[in-house]
């Protein structure tokens, strides 16, 4: 996760003009193409997402999501092909089960469910992609920055 584009998104703990940082894991065959389509079709959506392209939503290990949250993002979106449309036949259906458990568990621990979201976006759904990004960004904006377990040794690294 390269964080060189800090200029465009200024993060601030001040809630009013706070811009969340969101990582979007997009499946190569549908959602990534959907995002592309949203771009070429000029559908406007908030610039808060950083896209990481993955071969399939089934490739997502819960580890990646937790790592992203720990590394300083405020929310994560995972998006893949609609059920039945997976390029690898059933990758997204396996993934759906993992997502269900993960969603439940993070909610149970006390992390807001809006922090980690999952969606299906096909290659033809540019508009839907833009809508989903809008929703996710708004949700996370409302929650404010994630402070739960972001790694920050500047505060804790003090010696005795």
């Amino acid at each position, binding site marked *: 996760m390269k964080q060189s584009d800090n200029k465009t998104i200024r993060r601030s703990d001040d809630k009013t003009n706070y811009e969340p940082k969101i990582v979007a894991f997009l499946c190569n065959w549908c959602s990534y193409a959907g995002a592309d389509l949203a771009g070429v079709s000029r559908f406007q959506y908030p610039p808060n997402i950083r896209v990481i392209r993955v071969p399939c939503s089934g490739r997502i290990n819960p580890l990646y999501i937790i790592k992203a949250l720990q590394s300083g993002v405020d929310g994560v979106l995972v998006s893949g092909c609609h059920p039945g449309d997976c390029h690898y036949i059933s990758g997204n259906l396996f993934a759906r089960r993992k997502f269900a458990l993960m969603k439940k568990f993070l909610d149970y621990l006390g992390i807001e469910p809006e922090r980690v979201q999952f969606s299906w976006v096909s290659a033809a759904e540019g508009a839907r992609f833009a809508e989903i990004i809008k929703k996710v960004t708004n949700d996370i904006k409302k929650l404010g920055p994630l402070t739960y377990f972001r790694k920050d040794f500047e505060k804790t690294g003090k*010696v005795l």
Partner: protein
Amino acid sequence: MLKEKRNLMLYKQDFEKFFRLLSETFTIFGPSKTDGSRSFTKIDASDEIAFDYENTKMSLKEFFFPQTETLFFFDTEKNEVKQTDVETNKHDKQNILFGVRPCDAMSISFLDKVFNANNPQDLYYTRRRKSTRIVSFACTNPASTCFCTSVGCGPDSETGADIIFFELNGRYFIKTVTPEGEKTIKSAEKLLNPATKNDIEEKVHLMKTANSNLKKIFDSGNLQKKLDNFNAPYWGKLHRKCLGCGICTYLCPTCHCFDITDEVIKSNGRRIRTWDSCMFSLFTLHASGHNPRPTQKERMRQRIMHKFNYAPKYYGKTFCVGCGRCVIYCPVNMDIRDVMKEIMEER
């Protein structure tokens, strides 16, 4: 300069005053009642101290050699080391570790040999060590898991301590062990009286009972010779129930192995040292994939040998103080006393 160790008495009703006088010049740490004497924490009032604890869960080493320590901070963008506060920070206020068990106090004298010795000196450890006095508390009621007398320690061992307290009936018998200890109690001098013959007798009697409660299970000198047999058959068996977790080494007051790694967030980074354990499979894994200790057998052997054979050869001391933490907390009840017995019985 201290000519001889002094024996002093303090009445229990004066302890509160004594504590307050000391806390004017020192920050006091001790086993606190609030966290169930899990570790040594800052004590603000004398009644927070848990006197009757057996042993803290975390050993004293944590205080001088914390689980995670920043060696220095750096900036990866500028590619430069920002100095730590080890050189710059002056710690004006000195610390007292109060109510340390003699075994823990002794363990610090071992860690001194590793970190404080001039070969070269470990500044991080030394700095804390220099600013800290250890006031130990003799054990009058040792736990069933204690085996300090087997490894050359004891319920009234003075090694490593600056002052040692003995709890007598209604009063404390205080013995100053080092010049630093003498300086420590200077401010509370007026509360202290010289010990009488009676007091000394009572103390001697008290420790006799405590000592008799501790069974000597093995002799560490003989054990060292016995362990010279590196390929003894028992190594093939002993480790079998070991899970390979790091409880025994992390809770051990003398285990001091560590790892050095870098952590980076954006361009801020720090080099840290963290506890590591010879029980972990990755401990000795080379980058090439070769591992000199590939199975739990070798790792278990390393732990035992390091404490009872290598350390005596290298530092002249058996690196075990018999605190019993590894015995209490091992999830599979791998009792080091049993292991020792088995080794001693082997012909």
